[in-house]
């Protein structure tokens, strides 16, 4: 759709408005849930657009900021994007644990409420997704390893790291041991990540292992080995937390640390299958 031309040659005309949509909730959700949270345009109130059993969480934006031209350059501004992404998440996070949420990806912008209602009517899959996600939230679990600790531990298990390299032969032996240690390290990290993800997934409704956030070779004392997301029923989150505590206990001596984040809106559990 083409953008309406700016009606005045000098100064700005009244800026055109549009609606930014954060996601979908059941129609029974009280609008007051979003009463105090600022939208991606902080001067706008977040509201619900109802249609049938569904309600879209939306707030007003200016086309000066979110129109096709402006948004293209704004998307290249990291601080703008960071700020708006945070605002998007904050709106949905407000309702986590209080209603069921189907989160949309950043940037669903509509011209009017009527067009949002059309969307809610057309996407018949949204109701099924809401049903599937009812009573569930997302937790993030990241595992980090301190390689110095793990290396020392593996070396202790594998016997003394070797004599001083006084002879060529001793040197070669030591090199060989080091190489083996590197392999052991990589294998342990992979096994630990796999074991952790399996066990966390088993205590959740669903699990999803994401790409590691850390580039290879960064920070040896805090190397990410797992970046998982888990869909957990709010009435069963104790089991999930227990599974995490067990992992923390078991792997602590190996230098592995687990970070829990959330509860999040179930961002990781709505994509793909719902795509039309």
């Amino acid at each position, binding site marked *: *759709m083409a953008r309406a031309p700016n009606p005045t040659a000098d100064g700005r005309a009244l800026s055109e408005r*549009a609606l930014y*949509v954060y996601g979908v909730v059941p129609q029974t959700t*009280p609008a*007051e849930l979003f009463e*105090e949270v600022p939208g991606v345009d902080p001067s706008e109130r977040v509201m619900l657009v109802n249609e049938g059993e569904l309600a879209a969480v939306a707030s007003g934006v200016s*086309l000066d900021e*979110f*129109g*096709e031209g402006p*948004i*293209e*350059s704004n*998307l*290249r*501004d*990291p*601080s703008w*994007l*960071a*700020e708006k*992404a*945070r605002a998007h*998440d*904050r709106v949905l996070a*407000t309702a*986590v*644990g*209080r209603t069921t949420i*189907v*989160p*949309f*990806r*950043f*940037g*669903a*912008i*509509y*011209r009017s409420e009527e*067009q949002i209602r059309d969307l809610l009517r057309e996407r018949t899959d949204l109701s099924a*997704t809401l049903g599937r996600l009812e009573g569930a939230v997302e937790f*993030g679990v990241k595992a980090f390893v301190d390689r110095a600790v793990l290396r020392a531990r593996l070396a202790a298990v594998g016997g003394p790291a070797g004599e001083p390299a006084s002879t060529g032969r001793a040197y070669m032996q030591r090199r060989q041991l080091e190489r083996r240690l590197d392999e052991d390290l990589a294998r342990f990290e992979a096994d630990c990540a796999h074991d952790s993800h399996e066990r966390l997934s088993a205590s959740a409704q669903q699990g999803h292992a*994401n790409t590691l*956030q*850390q*580039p290879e070779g*960064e*920070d040896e004392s805090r190397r990410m080995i797992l970046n998982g997301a888990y869909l957990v029923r*709010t009435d069963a*989150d104790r089991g999930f937390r227990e599974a995490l505590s067990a992992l923390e206990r078991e792997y602590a001596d190996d230098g592995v*640390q687990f*970070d829990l*984040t959330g*509860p999040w*809106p179930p*961002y*990781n559990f*709505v*994509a793909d299958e*719902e795509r039309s």
Partner: protein
Amino acid sequence: MSTPMRRGEYGRSPISGREPAQLADVLERVLDKGIVIAGDIQINLLDIELLTIKLRLLVASADKAREMGIDWWEGDPFLKRGKENGAIEDRIKRLERAAGIDGGSRSEPDG
């Protein structure tokens, strides 16, 4: 920037309010996950994807972010395109605040 996340006026949810999230986690979810909806305004998702990668690298480590500093923004033709000069420092400050880096000390709680 305040975080209006911990509020109790609608009754306690079964799960308590969460800690302020790290920017990398927010970006990963808001820009990469969630249902893709083709709204009325067309957004170039490829732009978002490229920028997400860069942002992730940046926020992976607070020290790294400082190291990269202004050079990182200025030296990147992708990010420089379509931007006026002069506001770069201001942008970094805003991003640092958003990332919870805030001046010299890291304010994100660890663990």
